[in-house]
């Protein structure tokens, strides 16, 4: 098994498979096209490009939803994608909505439990720490940067961590609210954009970016999403952009916040675990040692267990068979 081979897909065939699934979904559910929240990142871009291949540009709406803490590249690259695909688009700055929901005030209040001087003028990000070894705990720190450039890092105590996560989740949920607004007014379906690693590992906000009518690339490893990106001709600047959460006001990589390793190594570990490969084979392919692979596998299991509830539909006390029968 070599790393480039095991995750190789036939991009033409996969594009057609996704196109058929998209068209069939829209026909079955009587929707006229899709709305996609664009971030200028590879996942939303490939999702939009696949939708255009499947439906035509006139049936795809791209939503650009920056806010005052967004990375400048997000809006710029999202506009590049709209121009490249020649799709309809709408720009909705969500800063006022965040303000109305009290996001900035609530976030700062929570952050001050760890960094007493923190206020709205500071930038910040949250970083995960694993205490190491195959059997491990994680904890979170906030890195704050004051306007004068000095930084302060502090471990987040329990209530502060929950408060920061809850406040930050406003961003994903407000964006999803706008996606469904446009979907409702234009009779479109909402296409979600998670890749397989994100979907599998619960890297999404419940009723935020985790909510969608269809998720065209959730079965694809991120490595495979990049293969589609090349096949579909995604602009180079989008393909070269490092994965980022673009959630906090300081740049934050996925591996700082959620995943243990860069995505290409996580993909190989996840693929190996899903296909029952030996840790030695996965280690060789991912250029890791066996202990690290086993540590990642254990972490994958923990995250699946911890985030299982994010995938759940509402639980009913008793079945409503007239509705269950429709599925």
């Amino acid at each position: 098994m070599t790393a480039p081979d095991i995750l190789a897909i036939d991009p033409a065939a996969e594009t057609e498979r996704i196109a058929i699934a998209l068209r069939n979904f829209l026909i079955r559910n009587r929707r006229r096209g899709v709305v996609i929240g664009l971030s200028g990142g590879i996942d939303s871009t490939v999702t939009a490009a696949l939708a255009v291949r499947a439906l035509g540009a006139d049936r795809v709406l791209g939503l650009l939803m920056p806010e005052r803490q967004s990375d400048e590249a997000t809006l710029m690259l999202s506009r590049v994608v709209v121009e490249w695909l020649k799709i309809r688009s709408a720009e909705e700055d969500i800063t006022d909505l965040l303000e109305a929901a009290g996001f900035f005030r609530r976030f700062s209040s929570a952050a001050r439990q760890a960094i007493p001087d923190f206020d709205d003028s500071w930038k910040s990000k949250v970083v995960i720490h694993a205490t190491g070894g195959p059997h491990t705990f994680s904890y979170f720190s906030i890195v704050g940067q004051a306007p004068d450039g000095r930084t302060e890092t502090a471990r987040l105590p329990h209530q502060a961590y929950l408060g920061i996560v809850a406040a930050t989740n406003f961003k994903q949920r407000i964006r999803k609210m706008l996606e469904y607004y446009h979907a409702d007014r234009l009779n479109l379906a909402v296409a979600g954009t998670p890749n397989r690693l994100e979907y599998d590992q619960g890297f999404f906000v419940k009723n935020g970016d985790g909510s969608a009518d269809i998720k065209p690339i959730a079965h694809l490893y991120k490595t495979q999403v990049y293969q589609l990106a090349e096949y579909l001709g995604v602009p180079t600047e989008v393909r070269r952009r490092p994965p980022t959460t673009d959630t906090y006001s300081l740049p934050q990589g996925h591996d700082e916040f959620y995943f243990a390793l860069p995505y290409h190594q996580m993909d190989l570990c996840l693929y190996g675990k899903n296909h029952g490969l030996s840790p030695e084979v996965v280690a060789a392919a991912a250029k890791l040692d066996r202990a690290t692979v086993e540590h990642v596998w254990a972490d994958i299991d923990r995250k699946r267990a911890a985030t299982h509830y994010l995938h759940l539909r509402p639980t009913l006390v008793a079945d409503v068979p007239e509705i269950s029968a429709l599925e």
Partner: protein
Amino acid sequence: MSDTKNEIRKFVVETFLFGQDTGLADDASFLDHGIVDSTGVIELVAHLEKTYGIKVKDEELTPDNLDSIDAIAAYLDRKRAAGGMIA
């Protein structure tokens, strides 16, 4: 069982198991039994810091110290011996 172990058990059962103590062994791993996740760990740490007047250092946030009732009790004993507790 010591008072400390009793207190830890009570917290774990009430907080994470909704009062249902289904025979959790003192040496049962919280991680292996799916009792705590990352959020649960920092909730446990907050409880220990508040109840025992200690500061759990970053490097002490390990399964060896916190992953079972026995481990926590032993960790608290070490903190007490080092003069790091007021309770």
